[in-house]
C-alpha cells in the first residue's frame, strides 16, 4: 500500500486516544405514506432506535441483521449520506453530522451494489474516484494498477467497460476503489452479497489481508453469520432498528447458551433468522 497511504492524514489529523467510532443513542426515522390514515397522510417509521456502541481503532466489528434491520441506514449515517434525527456519532472524535469534510477524508465504503459508470473502464472509474481525494494523474498512474493487482483483478481487463465485467469482478473493483484512498475507517455494507462462493472467499481473504497489513478499522454490515464470525472481533445484532448486543462471538453464544449465531438470533428475537417479513420491511429495505 506504499503509494496509497499519504493523502488522508495530511489534511485531516487523526486524533489519538479516541475510539474510531462512537455512536450514542443514534436515531433515524423516515416518513412513509399511510393510506389508512388518509390519501396524503404519512407516519414516521423508525429505521434506527437509540443505537449505542463504540469501535476501537484497528478493530473489525460486524453488525448482523436481516434486510430492513437498519444496517445500511447506519452505514449511510456514518458516511455522511444521511442526517440523524437524534443522538450522536463521532468518527475519530469528529462529529459525523457537523465535521463532514474531515470525516469524508477518513472514511470509505463498499456497498452491496458495486456502483460504477458502466460505460467507463475499471481504471477510469478508479481514476475518477481518486481525483475526489486529491490524487492526481502522477499518483493514480502507479496506484491504480497496484491496487487492482492486489485485489486480483486481471491486468488485461483494466480497460474494459464495467458493464462487461462479472459481479464478482465489479465487487473487486469496488474494494479497490475504497482502498485506493487509504481510509482509516472502512464501512463494508454486505460486500459479498450475491457473489459466487469463490468470489466471496476471495473478497473475504482480501478483507483479512487489508486488516493485517493496513491500519484500518472495519465496520462490516452483513446478514451472513458465517462471514461475520470469520472476519469480526465482535458481532452485533441489529433488529428492527435496535442493537440487541455487540460482543465477541463466544460471549454471545455463552450469554444465550447456544452453539450458533442463528440460535442466538432466535434466542434474542424469538424469531428465526430467515422468516422475518412484515409490512414495514418493504419500506425499510428501500432506505435500509
Amino acid at each position, binding site marked *: 500500500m506504499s503509494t496509497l497511504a499519504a493523502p488522508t492524514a495530511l*489534511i485531516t489529523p487523526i486524533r489519538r486516544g479516541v475510539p474510531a467510532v462512537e455512536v450514542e443513542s443514534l436515531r433515524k426515522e423516515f416518513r412513509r405514506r399511510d393510506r389508512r390514515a388518509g390519501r396524503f397522510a404519512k407516519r414516521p417509521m423508525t429505521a434506527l432506535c437509540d443505537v449505542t456502541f463504540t469501535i476501537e481503532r484497528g478493530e473489525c466489528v460486524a453488525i448482523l441483521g436481516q434486510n430492513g434491520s437498519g444496517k445500511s441506514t447506519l452505514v449511510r449515517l456514518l458516511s455522511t449520506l*444521511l442526517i440523524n434525527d437524534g443522538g450522536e456519532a463521532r468518527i475519530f472524535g469528529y462529529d459525523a453530522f457537523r465535521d463532514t469534510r474531515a470525516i*469524508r477524508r477518513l472514511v470509505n465504503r463498499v456497498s452491496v451494489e458495486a*456502483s460504477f459508470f458502466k460505460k*467507463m473502464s475499471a481504471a477510469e472509474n478508479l481514476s475518477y474516484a481518486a*481525483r*475526489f*481525494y*486529491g490524487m492526481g494523474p502522477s499518483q493514480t498512474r502507479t496506484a491504480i494498477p497496484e491496487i487492482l493487482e492486489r485485489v486480483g483483478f486481471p491486468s488485461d481487463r483494466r480497460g474494459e467497460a464495467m458493464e462487461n465485467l462479472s459481479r464478482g469482478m465489479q465487487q473487486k473493483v469496488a474494494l479497490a476503489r475504497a482502498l485506493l484512498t487509504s481510509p482509516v475507517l472502512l464501512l463494508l455494507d454486505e460486500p459479498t452479497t450475491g457473489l459466487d462462493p469463490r468470489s466471496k472467499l476471495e473478497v473475504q481473504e482480501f478483507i483479512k489481508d487489508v486488516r493485517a497489513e493496513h491500519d484500518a478499522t472495519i465496520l462490516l454490515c452483513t446478514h451472513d453469520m458465517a462471514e461475520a464470525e470469520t472476519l469480526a472481533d465482535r458481532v452485533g445484532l441489529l433488529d428492527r432498528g435496535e442493537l440487541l448486543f455487540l460482543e465477541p462471538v463466544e460471549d454471545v453464544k455463552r450469554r444465550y447458551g447456544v452453539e450458533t449465531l442463528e440460535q442466538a438470533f432466535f434466542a434474542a428475537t424469538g424469531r428465526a433468522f430467515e422468516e422475518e417479513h412484515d409490512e414495514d420491511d418493504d419500506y425499510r429495505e428501500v*432506505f435500509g
Partner: protein
Amino acid sequence: MTAASVAVRRELVGLAGIVERNVYLTKRYFLWDLAFMVWTIANTLTIVFIARAAGLPPARENTLATGLLVGAVIWAFLGIIFEFMTETVAWERWEGTIEYTFMAPLSRSMHLGGMGAFAVLYGLIRATILFVVVAAFIGIHAPEANYAAALGLLAIASVSFIGIGMMTSVLPLISPEKGAQLGFVAQGMMLVVSGVYYPVSVMPEWMQALAKLSPATYAIRGCRAAIADGAGMQWADVWPLLVIACASIPLGLVIFRRGERYAKKHGKLKRSG
C-alpha cells in the same frame, strides 16, 4: 506545501476529475451525441427557414435569419449547460454512483463547478458546429461578424447560466422522478422572456421587466449585434451579466446545499425502490 495550498490543490484535482469523467463519457456516447447533434441541426433549420418564408427583401431576410439562428444557437447552448448541470444528480443516481460522489471530500462548489466547466466547453463546441452548419445550409452572409465578441459574451453569460443550472440541478434531489424535466421548464421560461426569436420590446411590460433579470437577454442581444452588425462587446451587455453571475453562483450553491440537506434528511439521495 502549506495545508492551505494542499487543500486548494486537492479541490482543483477534484474539479479536473469531474471534467475528465465527462470527457470519458462523451467519448463512450459519441454516436448518441452525434445523433443528438443532427436533431439539434434539424430543429434549428425549422426555425431559421421561417426567415425564408417571410417574403422579405434579401438583406432583411438575411438579418432575420441571422437573428433566428443566434437565438436557436443560444437556446441549444443553454440546453447543454442545463442538461449537464441537471445530470450532476440525475445521471449519478441512474448509475448508482451518487452516494460515492456525495461522500467524497470534494466541496460542492468544485463539484458543480467541474460540471459547469465541462458543460461550457462542450456547449461552445456544439454551438459553434451548429452555427457553422446551419449558416452554410441556409446561406447566411455575415461578412462583418465579430465572432470573438460573441464568444466572449457567451463565456461571460455562461457563469450566470451555470449558477442558474446549479439551482435547477437540485430538482432531481427533491423529486427523483420528475425533477430533471423541471430543469427544461426553467430553461424554456428563461428563454421566452429573453427575446430568443424576437425583440424583447414586443413582449408585455411585465415580461420585459423579467427580461432584465435574465442573463440570456444580454447574451442574445449582444451576440446578435456582434454577428449581424460586427459590434464589439458592449458594456451595457457585460455589466448586467457580471452582476447576475455574482449573484447566481452563490445563490445556486445555497439552493443546492439546501436541497442536498433535504435529501439527506429524508433519505432521497439514493432511491432503490
